[in-house]
């Protein structure tokens, strides 16, 4: 089961490292990463496999949100189906 992690906010040292560390701790495999600076803000989109995750998606969401608060950026995780539904026929 895949999910999409999005990180948006002011660029700073260690964003990717800390997000990846949190995902690794939960045994979440990263499938793809794309990163860009969009209208001045750091924007990263990751496709991840949560099939073997130690924590359910709902809990991962809480952990990532907590990390986001600490780093003053917005981090979220959402099941991939929501984007597929909206953008693929």
């Amino acid at each position: 089961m895949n999910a999409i992690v999005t990180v948006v906010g002011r660029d700073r040292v260690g964003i990717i490292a800390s997000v990846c560390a949190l995902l690794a701790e939960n045994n979440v495999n990263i499938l793809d990463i794309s990163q860009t600076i969009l209208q001045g803000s750091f924007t990263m989109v990751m496709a991840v496999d949560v099939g073997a995750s130690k924590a359910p998606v709902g809990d991962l969401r809480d952990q990532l949100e907590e990390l986001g608060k600490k780093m003053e950026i917005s981090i979220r995780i959402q099941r991939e189906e929501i984007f597929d539904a909206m953008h693929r026929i």
Partner: protein
Amino acid sequence: MLNQKDILSTIEMIDQQHLDIRTITMGISLLSCCDPDGKKACDKVYDKITRYAEKLVKTGEDIEREFGIPIVNKRISVTPMALVAGASDAKDYVPFALAMDRAAKTCGVNFIGGYSALVQKGMTLADEKLIRSIPEALASTDLVCSSVNVGSTKAGINMDAVALMGRVIKETARLTEAQDGLGCAKLVVFCNAVEDNPFMAGAFHGVGEAEKVINVGVSGPGVVHHALQSVKGQPFEVVAETVKKTAFRITRMGQLVAQEASRRLDTPFGIVDLSLAPTPAVGDSVARILEEMGLEVCGTHGTTAALALLNDAVKKGGVMASSSVGGLSGAFIPVSEDEGMIAAARSGVLTLDKLEAMTCVCSVGLDMIAVPGDTSAETISAIIADEAAIGMVNCKTTAVRLLPAPNKTVGDTIEMGGLLGSAPVMPVHNESAAAFIGRGGRIPAPMHSLKN
């Protein structure tokens, strides 16, 4: 792989354009709760609702967390209560409303609909008893919503029921006077009511429906408004196409959530109601969409045409996105729940007469409109009759949810808070329709009801 632009556009819709699932509504048949003993019937009603909907709220919250899409309301609709209560010897039906209210609170939902009667052709003793109990039922409960269907294209308009509803609405306002007549916000009078509507206050679980069912209502006026900002000044074909594409996306999301909820709750999926349902939040308004099309203020000349285009394009875009579309489906125009409508009404441009014209081309009717507290019951009935006539002749659902504001008059505002919003009191015509309403009887069904 999804592209980054698509992903970020979805997130922007949720974050900045108020995209959400407006409601997951579980419909529950209560026909099996009929009992000659009124008290036993109430116990059965409570037990069945709490058993079936036990996990509704939790499931909704889980989906919300996993998919990252807000699901604003979790609700329950039940069989029109007149049918269940009518099997009992109960003298007073208010205990049935109390049982519904208790069950809703136990389940943690924010509304339960179905304190209802369907009387388009005539009233049974139970129907009449239930209708007369509505004011007390709404005043003594918090979460119960009530609806009465007074007309249909097939049956005509039951003018005795229309007359009675004028008095019921007045009495409901009086009994909930301390809260600006809040009870009336939970009471809808329909023509051509639908059996699978997930939206309150008019939701009930029709007798043609299954044992239990999941219906989902989507929303997204903000997303449509935002999309139209990118096609300023372009012809209407472009406007319609833009609305269609947006409605398609919104509805696909609704379909996904509906299927997921249906699977997790082991309850058949019923319909997606592809409505544009506004909220009082800035940026979540249907009126602002109409203004974006080129109208200075919603309610001016051209508003009906703009709404007709919007309503049609929403349906066309949504219908392919869902395996089963139903409910009311279209654009809602509740005044108090729409920031742009409130502003337009306050400025005097949007009038009751214009709103009536708009209901000919939108999905429901005169919704959440505050009128002066001294408006007579007959005038309210006459407004209901006009609206029901529009529904009857045009083979569409129309509804009336009027809020006679106790002790208030034109220029005042009533505050209901939350999604119900606030409403400026709008003027009604002062000339009497009492002799018209006093006639009683039934307005015959139109010629085109004879289709067989």
